[in-house]
């Protein structure tokens, strides 16, 4: 079954869909992957890597069968691949360069003959020879890479099958995906075993996200890759392998997430990107607007051109002015933060403060113990929050009352404290101090990286009455980052993306850490 599944995946995927798995196969063969990207500046080299023999290899990835027609259509790029030498800060001044053209399909005989003829000419001109790598070779490498880790128990097989057979349009099952990753990476792992497993995890993630690549569902590709990266980090943290070879696989997964964010940002920046495609309920449109600008903001914070940043800020301002953003519940908090952080970095402090204050006012109004209409908690996804909102309005039914508390109250308050918004907080304090703050603290550092953490404690707490401002300032300036796993502690970009992908992990230690790093760069 596994060979057939890989074959099915490989024949349906485009080049972006298999690039991470391909990068992982290079890592497994002892290569060092320097870059995976598709940009006008890569000059035909989608993947750049250094071989164990210190050769520099450039790979151009294709997602079609290559005949003479395809060869001729892409000839310019192929010339750039073969005839220009790669440039990268990690490359030595002198090296042997080898170009490769890779496809998940086949090379026809005339195309192979054409390559041979061109190679003779390139060799005569002192250029390197081009080597073709076809789908069969890719298939063999990928099957070997994960062959020991395929699910065999019926529940695991069912879980895998359900994750694989998706529409790829919004139906990413994050909890199930995380559970699959956890099963794959569980146990006490030696350094070597950890390396094998993280390699397999990246390959399996590529399989499971294949349909999202086909549908170009960038948002869920981003979520999938961040969850993958988080679980690679989880396995390493649990096994105490802080500096072992898993970090390159982690970087591949993280890069894949950034690439997905980048594709989403590019789409957001096009004219009429936010146009509804059919008859659409405004709440739905506003939800999409909000999630999309949140992701776009995150990408701008990580690395984005000035043009895109300016465009993103303009779009946020436009949406905010026209009331076209909907922060659907407490799981929207990381999205709000991404927007606020970008606005601050771009000097739009007033709007940033208004957004923070708006969320605080919402908490004060709707999250106190007597409320009948609280915000949904951060464990409720954007998708489910909108479903609940629709059902509450179209089919209102009396429901049993539940205690109301807020997971976002503490981090939100501390963010406002860090911004010295004492006056604004004082005005809201009589209502805000009625809200019960809840927070979850994993017992172990790796617990932060889990989608569902069994080992930890949840605690409800209210602010002291009266509450010391000085104490709040102390809390705000000293997030307990020593409790965090290495990746969340040291890599604020991963922290920012992790918050968006796992919106219920809204601990001050993570948020405060990212806040300090982002605002330091502002």
């Amino acid at each position, binding site marked *: 079954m596994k060979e057939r599944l890989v074959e099915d995946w490989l024949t349906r995927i485009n080049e972006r869909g298999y690039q991470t798995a391909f990068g992982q196969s290079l890592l497994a063969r002892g290569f060092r992957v320097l870059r995976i990207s598709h940009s006008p500046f890569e000059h035909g080299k989608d993947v750049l890597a250094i071989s164990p023999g210190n050769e520099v290899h450039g790979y151009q990835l294709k997602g079609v069968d290559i005949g003479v027609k395809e060869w001729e259509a892409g000839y310019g790029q192929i010339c750039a691949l073969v005839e220009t030498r790669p440039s990268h800060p990690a490359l030595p001044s002198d090296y042997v360069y080898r170009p490769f053209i890779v496809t998940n399909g086949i090379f026809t005989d005339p195309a192979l003959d054409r390559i041979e003829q061109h190679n003779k000419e390139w060799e005569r001109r002192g250029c390197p020879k081009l080597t073709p790598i076809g789908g069969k070779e890719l298939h063999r490498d990928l099957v070997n890479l994960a062959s020991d880790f395929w699910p065999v128990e019926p529940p695991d097989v069912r879980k895998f099958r359900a994750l694989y057979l998706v*529409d790829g*349009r*919004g*139906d990413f099952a994050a909890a199930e995906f995380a559970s699959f990753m956890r099963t794959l990476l569980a146990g006490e792992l030696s350094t070597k075993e950890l390396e094998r497993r993280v390699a397999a995890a990246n390959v399996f993630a590529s399989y499971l996200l294949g349909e999202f690549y086909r*549908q*170009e*569902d*960038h*948002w*869920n590709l981003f979520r999938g890759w961040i969850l993958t990266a988080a679980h690679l980090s989880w396995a390493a943290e649990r096994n105490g392998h802080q500096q072992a070879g898993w970090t390159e696989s982690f970087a591949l997964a993280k890069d894949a997430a950034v690439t997905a964010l980048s594709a*989403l940002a590019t*789409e*957001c920046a096009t004219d*009429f*990107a*936010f*146009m*509804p495609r059919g*008859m*659409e*309920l*405004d*709440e*739905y*449109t*506003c*939800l*999409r*607007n909000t*999630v*999309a600008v949140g*992701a776009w903001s995150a990408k701008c914070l990580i690395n984005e051109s000035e043009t895109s940043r300016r465009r993103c800020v303009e779009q946020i301002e*436009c*949406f905010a002015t*026209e009331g*076209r953003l909907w922060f659907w519940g407490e799981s929207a908090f990381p999205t709000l933060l991404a927007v606020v952080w970008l606005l601050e970095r771009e000097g739009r402090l007033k709007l940033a403060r208004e957004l923070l204050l708006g969320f605080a006012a919402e908490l004060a109004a709707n999250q106190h113990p007597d409320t009948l209409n609280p915000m949904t908690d951060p464990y409720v996804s*954007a*998708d*489910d929050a*909108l*479903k609940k909102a*629709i*059902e509450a*309005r*179209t*089919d209102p039914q009396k429901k049993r009352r539940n205690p109301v508390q807020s997971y976002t109250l503490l981090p939100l308050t501390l963010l406002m404290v860090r911004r010295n918004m004492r006056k604004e907080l004082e005005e809201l304090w009589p209502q805000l101090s009625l809200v019960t703050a809840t927070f979850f603290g994993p017992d172990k550092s790796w617990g932060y990286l889990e989608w569902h953490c069994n080992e930890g404690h949840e605690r409800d707490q209210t602010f002291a009455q009266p509450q010391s401002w000085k104490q709040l300032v102390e809390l705000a300036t000293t997030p307990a980052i020593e409790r965090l796993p290495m990746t969340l502690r040291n890599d604020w970009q991963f922290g920012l993306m992790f918050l968006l992908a796992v919106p219920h992990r809204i601990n001050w230690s993570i948020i405060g850490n990212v806040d300090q790093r982002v605002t330091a760069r502002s």
Partner: protein
Amino acid sequence: MLPEFPTAQEAIQKAWNEGFFKALGLSDPLVAQVEVRVQKEGTKAFIGNTEIQFKKAHVEHQWKPENGKGIPFDDFFARAESLGQEMAKQQAAICFEALSTPGPHNAVFKGSDSAFCFEDFLSSLEGMEIDFDEAGMPKWPAAFVGGEAFASLRMNRKAWSLTEERQRRLAEFVERKRKDFDERKARRRLVD
């Protein structure tokens, strides 16, 4: 593509469909009484030797989308209702068209310059089969009249209200129909 939310989308579609079908099924008094039978397979259907003629009813609405803006909640679901009502009207029109040919199960009161009267009532029911319940009471067919005709009926009660003479004629009519009904009933048996 920008993010999509299939769970919410399904909930919205479900609520919209409920609004639409509620309006379709209940807004028109005629359509509300018409039983709906859905053909499960095939593309043709017959009652006896008569092929059922399917007729298409079609409703549509237009909306000019704007970047980042959807349809406000109340407007969105009001569209479901108005489209359902419009569809019901079309279905009612198709029903009336089908019923305009008199048969054993339907009759048409043709409007004229003079007011509707008792004689019109009896003569239009003449060709119809009337069934009787277990207590022997006639199951009168439901009548549908337009608003104008209904106003005229109310104004001219004398023309069709039951006098002694009319009661006698009605009783005769019922007896005749009962006899027809009994004969029909007697024919419902197995023979060699």
